[in-house]
């Protein structure tokens, strides 16, 4: 996904070392990690050599998964990427390792159940917003549009036509990933 690659390059350009950092957890490792120092791990997004597959989800939900969703999550092993938009802060969810993908899938299945029950179309969350709210951003599985959503409710509104345009209008930030 070219827009994601550009976003990552711009993020890394904000740092002196070309690396991002987050607290080190010995039992939660990532192919993106390069070295550790003083309780921090230093990492930079690295391409997935064997990209994750949404085939299982597709079978489970009996749905074709939008190409943008697959491309977004199957590009890099990476920690959360931070940004600002004209409407506020954005934390882009990324995959740290294969187990992280398994978790994501489990959470997406839970999300799909909520959507089915309320007869709403399936969406896939990919970013968190303002830490004091539960509002998140998702990709609409049928159209690829970017939606603002609250758990268990119909989408609040469409914020962009597609993920590529959305990523290109974000301003990357070098800040630690945060609590909500």
């Amino acid at each position, binding site marked *: 996904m070219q827009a994601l690659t550009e976003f990552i390059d711009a993020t890394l350009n904000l740092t002196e070392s070309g690396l991002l950092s*987050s*607290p080190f*957890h010995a039992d*939660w490792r990532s192919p993106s990690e390069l070295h550790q120092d003083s309780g921090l791990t230093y990492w930079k997004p690295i391409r997935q050599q064997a990209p994750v597959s949404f085939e299982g989800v597709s079978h489970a939900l009996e749905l074709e998964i939008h190409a943008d969703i697959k491309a977004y999550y199957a590009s890099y092993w990476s920690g*959360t990427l931070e940004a600002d938009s*004209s*409407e*506020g802060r954005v*934390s882009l*969810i990324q995959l*740290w390792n294969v*187990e*992280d993908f398994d*978790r*994501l899938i*489990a*959470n*997406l*299945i*839970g*999300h799909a159940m909520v959507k089915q029950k309320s007869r709403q179309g399936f969406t896939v*969350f990919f970013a*968190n917003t*303002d*830490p*004091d*709210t*539960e*509002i*998140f951003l998702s990709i609409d599985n049928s159209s690829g549009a970017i939606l*603002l959503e*609250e*758990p*268990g*409710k119909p989408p*609040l*509104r469409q914020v962009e036509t597609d993920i590529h345009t959305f990523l290109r209008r974000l301003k990357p930030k070098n800040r630690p*990933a*945060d*609590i*909500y």
Partner: protein
Amino acid sequence: MNRNRNQNQDQLTLAPIRQITGEVTLPGSKSLSNRALLLSALANGRTHLKNLLRSDDTERMVEALRQLGTGIELSEDWKSGDVLGNSGLFNTPDVTDFFLGNAGTAIRPLTAVLSLIPGDFTIDGDQYMRERPIEHLIDALLALGAQVSYREKAGCPPIQLRGGLVNGGNVSIRGDISSQYLTALLMALPLAANDSNIMIQGEQVSKPYLDITLGMLKKFGVTASHENYQTFNIPGNQAYRSPGGFLIEGDASSASYFFGAAAIGQGAVRVHGLGKHSVQGDYQFLDIIELMGAKVDRADDWTDVTGDELHGVDVDLNHIPDAAMTIAAMALFAKGQTVIRNIYNWRVKETDRMHAMAEGLTRLGAIVQTTEDSIAIDPPSEIQAATIDTYGDHRVAMSFSLAALGNAPVTINDPDCTRKTFPDYFDVFQSLSTNR
């Protein structure tokens, strides 16, 4: 007020209203409800809570407090309830797994409180909460001596917490992200054995919310002080005392629509659940409408607003950005220009509120100029009939209901977006309206 909804309820037309008069009681917010529930459960004595909000967040909190052995009796509609306080920290419960759904206002303070109680706890949420980091709060608890590990993804629920190891002390947390984990620590640490000092890194955001927290601690008999929101000092070994009864204040931002409507139409409104001791920043909205010409009477448990001729004002409303939207709608009815400054915050909410407000006011006939962080509104001589796009934003919908106090009908698109904070707003508004 006559109102017409089309079949799929995606539009609501408000017929012209002559006046708003009457009395209204506003529901408490989910965060204030949850704070009151938790403090009552920790206090000694029984606390009678009034005006609780029933929501997913408060249901999760009540469940968790009952799991911790708290006796809670609630009326069917939850508008009142009695909490039998535990006189301090809870005993280790039999069931130590806590599931808090998507309740952000429950998981943060409960995690902080559980860190003080001996036991091994699992704290988890639903699929949405599991994607949201809780690491900053956990880092603060780790610095205070807690033992925490992440069961799955580092930084996110579910977490495994060994409680009983936090005794107070010094800790730094970032203030520029949120006020909610500081609030969690402020509620838990008075019960720690020793004193605590919390150093804030960066500029603290959401100071009005912190004032609300400190105000509640005080009402429950606990002290905590701060130096310019950069250092918080919390004496340890304190005890929460039941204030007997506790009114969960109605949301002052929501009250602003009724106050504003009464001020415009020379009406009179009494809002119960909001009084001169309010701990909410948006209560200062009343100072602004007094400047505009309205009459305000502030009592202990209620506030009256009586309308009079309004005139435009030039004000910095950075401290009350939500209620500032009501001022913008009131500007339609004021003599002369109204300028609202320092409201960059309008652009970073659920929708671009600056755009939404400017568009709606213009459709109603006002001449509007905006900058990056201000809006200037020249009222029309006569308000025009218009359809307002709310962009799914509850405050845009509620603000523009005030435009119906002109001589023209106003149509609100997607009126049900008020479900976020005030699902029956238009019904309450209707009950107070007299049509032209």
